[in-house]
């Protein structure tokens, strides 16, 4: 075994780490560890000068292993691996200690935090000793792309990709393209017609030779990996199609919240309590009227139905406020005499032109009444004959602190957005993770919002979180651009941390074969041993811990690596115990 020359680099992250961890002390301590040739601290390791520092040291002091203690590896592991590569060192001769997200940011006792940092770094040093050189593999990219979801996001992405002559498969569950946008009349804040907008887009998609559309269809399961996916598409008529493609865009969007569960709004009980979706339909048909066909005199628009409320969804659905303002405008122009009430919890008219839209709307004698999500929500009640209106809304008006009654003949519930029922199915098929709100999780919330942790799978539009049309469209184009760039390159590098079988040891018990979720392991009848297809393997390591002979090695997560990590973490904490006793 070649001698280990380890370089340890500890990041201040400005004050983020240095405030809670005594970086200089840790640096000194680490220098004492055997095999550690260099131990440095630096303001921002991830910065270019920071990386150059490492590269320089590797070259000058021919370091063979690098440990960086800074933020989460989920943040910068790749950054530093690249640096190692630059320096001509195998990128996997690197280990990271997370002393920011899991130390300096979460602890309040500087001494303790410093001790913890030492333990974490020691563990990393221990571990990196046993790291082995791995080479990341290149895989060819199938230029076709699968887009799940034929909403405005999916359509835009499809057009974008097909626009540069690449094949696109567009899967839509329903019988027509357009998604939620297809249900809209006008769009806020400039009151363009959504219908017209979509019509042109859909026409383009339908006529584009590079786009193959599957209506009433859904993805059964997706096999493979970036560049070489393979999927089973089944249509409502039970027609099965096999597709091959290199990348996936998930643009499944969201569905509107069903208010039937909220008895206080009496949806379903009162005929003239309708959802925003139903009202859009009404507007598309061009006539605002009650179920009995007469014209409503008092129209109440209730915001945040199912949104920003602990009992339903805590998040803000983002589109409802501006839509409600749009409604107010449309009602005002159709029924100049009508009394219009907006019952809102908070007016969130963010985004270009929307605050102005709110201001102009508020000057059209529209009553903005605030309710309190914490307190009782507004309650719709039957009215007396004497009230001269069909319904009354009981409301604790927040700004005045008065309990009041709001007359209403037509009540529009601004229903929020929520995950579709099949979100889990799609997540499993595509290997995406779902957050607490059942939205797909992006790779990085700020720096990489359309990529996901699964290579070759991108998310765009509302399925990642509620979004309005411009946001969805720009995400669609972003995702498309990402894919086009990989197609242009023709191949991509993928992780090397897979499993492999030591044929000298494997006894062919075949325990591992069913363990693998990607059926990457097969049994070689001739040799009587198991074999891992490293292209299919995604490196979860479950087979390794299921193998009774120790024949399966999980690269980069080997027993000995983890053992040494454990020793590092605990011995340090033991010496701490002794310190305490002393």
């Amino acid at each position, binding site marked *: 075994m070649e001698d280990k020359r380890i370089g340890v680099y500890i990041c201040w992250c400005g004050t983020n780490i240095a405030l809670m961890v005594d970086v200089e002390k840790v640096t000194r301590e680490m220098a004492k560890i055997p095999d550690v040739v260099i131990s440095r601290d630096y303001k921002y390791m991830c910065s270019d000068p920071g990386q150059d520092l490492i590269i320089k040291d590797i070259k000058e002091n021919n370091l063979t292993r690098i440990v960086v203690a800074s933020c989460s590896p989920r943040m910068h592991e790749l950054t530093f691996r690249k640096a190692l590569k630059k320096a001509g060192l195998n990128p996997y001769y690197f280990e990271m200690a997370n002393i920011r997200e899991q130390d300096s940011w979460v602890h309040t006792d500087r001494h303790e935090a410093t001790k913890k940092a030492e333990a974490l770094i020691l563990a990393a040093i221990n571990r990196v000793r046993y790291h082995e050189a791995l080479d990341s593999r290149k895989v060819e990219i199938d230029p076709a792309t699968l887009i799940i979801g034929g909403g405005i996001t999916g359509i835009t992405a499809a057009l974008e990709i097909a626009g540069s002559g690449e094949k696109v498969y567009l899967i839509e569950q329903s019988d027509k393209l357009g998604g939620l946008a297809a249900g809209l009349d006008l769009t806020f804040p400039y009151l363009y017609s959504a219908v017209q907008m979509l019509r042109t887009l859909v026409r383009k998609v339908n006529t584009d030779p590079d786009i193959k559309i599957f209506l009433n269809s859904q993805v059964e399961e997706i096999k493979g990996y970036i560049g070489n996916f393979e999927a089973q598409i089944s249509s409502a008529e039970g027609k099965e199609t096999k597709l091959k493609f290199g990348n996936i865009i998930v643009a499944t969007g969201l569905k509107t919240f069903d208010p039937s569960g909220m008895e206080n709004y009496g949806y379903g009980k009162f005929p003239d309590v309708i959802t925003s979706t139903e009202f859009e339909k009404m507007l598309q048909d061009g006539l605002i009227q009650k179920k009995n066909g007469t014209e409503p005199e008092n129209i109440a628009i209730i915001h945040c139905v199912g949104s920003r409320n602990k009992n339903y969804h805590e998040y803000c659905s983002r589109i409802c406020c501006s839509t409600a303002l749009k409604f107010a405008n449309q009602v005002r122009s159709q029924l100049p005499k009508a*009394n*219009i*009430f907006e019952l809102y919890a908070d007016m969130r008219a963010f985004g270009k032109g929307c605050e102005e839209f709110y201001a102009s709307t*508020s*000057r059209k*004698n529209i*009553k*903005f*009444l605030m309710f309190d999500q914490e307190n009782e929500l507004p309650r719709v009640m039957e009215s007396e004959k004497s*009230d001269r209106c069909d319904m*009354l809304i*009981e409301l*604790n*008006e927040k*700004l*005045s*602190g*008065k*309990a*009041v*009654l*709001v*007359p209403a003949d037509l009540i529009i519930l601004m229903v929020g957005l929520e995950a579709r029922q099949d979100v889990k199915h799609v997540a499993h098929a595509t290997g995406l993770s779902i957050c607490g709100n059942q939205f797909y999780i992006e790779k990085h919330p700020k720096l990489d919002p359309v990529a996901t942790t699964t290579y070759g799978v991108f998310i765009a539009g509302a399925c990642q979180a509620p979004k309005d049309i411009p946001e969805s469209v720009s995400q669609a184009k972003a995702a498309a651009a990402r894919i086009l760039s990989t197609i242009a390159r023709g191949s991509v590098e993928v992780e090397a941390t897979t499993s492999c079988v030591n044929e000298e040891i494997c006894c062919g018990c075949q325990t591992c074969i069913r363990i693998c979720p990607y059926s990457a392991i097969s049994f070689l009848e001739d040799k009587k041993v198991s074999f891992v297809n490293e292209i299919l393997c995604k490196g979860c390591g479950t087979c390794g811990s299921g193998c009774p002979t120790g024949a399966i090695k999980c690269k980069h997560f080997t027993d000995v690596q983890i053992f040494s990590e454990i020793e590092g973490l605990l011995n340090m904490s033991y010496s701490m115990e002794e310190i305490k006793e002393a």
Partner: protein
Amino acid sequence: MKERIDPRFYVGLEEFGIKTAEWNECFHCGNCTAICPLTEKGVLFPRKEIRLMQMGLKKELHACTEPWLCYYCGDCSKTCPRDANPAELMMSLRRYLTSVYDWTGLARKIYTSKIWEYMLIFMLAAIVLVLYLKFTFYPAAEGQWIGADGGVLINKIAPWHRIHIGDWLMAGFLAFLLISNIFNMWYKVILSDKSVKIPFPAYITQFFSLVWNFFTQQKFNKCDDSKIYWYLHLFLMLSYVSLFTIIVFFLKWFQTDIIHPFWHPQRLIGYIATTGLFSGIFYFIFNRFNKSRQNSKYSHITDWTFLVLLFLTTATGISLHIFRISGMPVATYYTYVIHLMCLVPMLTIEVPFSKWSHLAYRPFAVYFANLKKSAIILPKRDS
């Protein structure tokens, strides 16, 4: 019972100076309440009134004493980020509330239509003229009209007891209206507010605040930056009240044939009061002209009418005095009638129906507000 929102409430209130375009802009940041020197626990104006306006909660608004507690320093309007001009809303609300308290409905007419206002003024003036011609004597050539001291024998022209009868009729009339309106106010502010219940003793214990505020207007003092405004306002008010009492109750002593020496209280008080009135009037007129002060930026027609009438009354009053001591019977005769023709409409219109009524409503508002404070607050929401 919860009050129902009335989106049309604001309709027709523009006449009082309630500018929808302004208060509608308010988005309730609360700066006005924060800056107001009079805001205290339980009295959170002017945001409250704006909100009630926006929501059209009539009952709630009528139960408000706050407009009367505001002395229009205008800080709220200065700091308002939306130019919702709360101060002016409070001013306009005072006009509106005056009309609300007034059961005859005349106040609303006067505030909302010039025609009505002037018609009333001229009608009253006419009545005065007729009565004057009927019950007084023209100083014809024959007969002795000049006294030994060279002053006009005014009681020969307009005998004080006859005038006195007129005074009393008027005073009675005013008193009746004013008191009944105050009862109306009490009903709207205290009785119809189900959330409070006033223990009777409070009425007595708080009575002092009524009197005290009537004379000192110390609240007013708290909110003004330049003291001069408050002093002049107080001076004017006191001069007005003293003259009013003298004329209504001590006319015999005030309207004499003999000319007292300059230092005689009768004359002295007269002069001081006149100065008080004049300085006040001129100061206010000046303000309303150059709009330097926030509270004089916007002038309702009735504000002008009031000032003009008051000015004329004072002016004619003092010139009447001058003509008398300088022994000019005819001038005295005519001036006297003009003086009455200004005075009577001024009082009859302004005191019960218009601006002048605030001299009663303000202290009562403070009184009622204190009553409410001292009262046990019952749970706000009826559930």
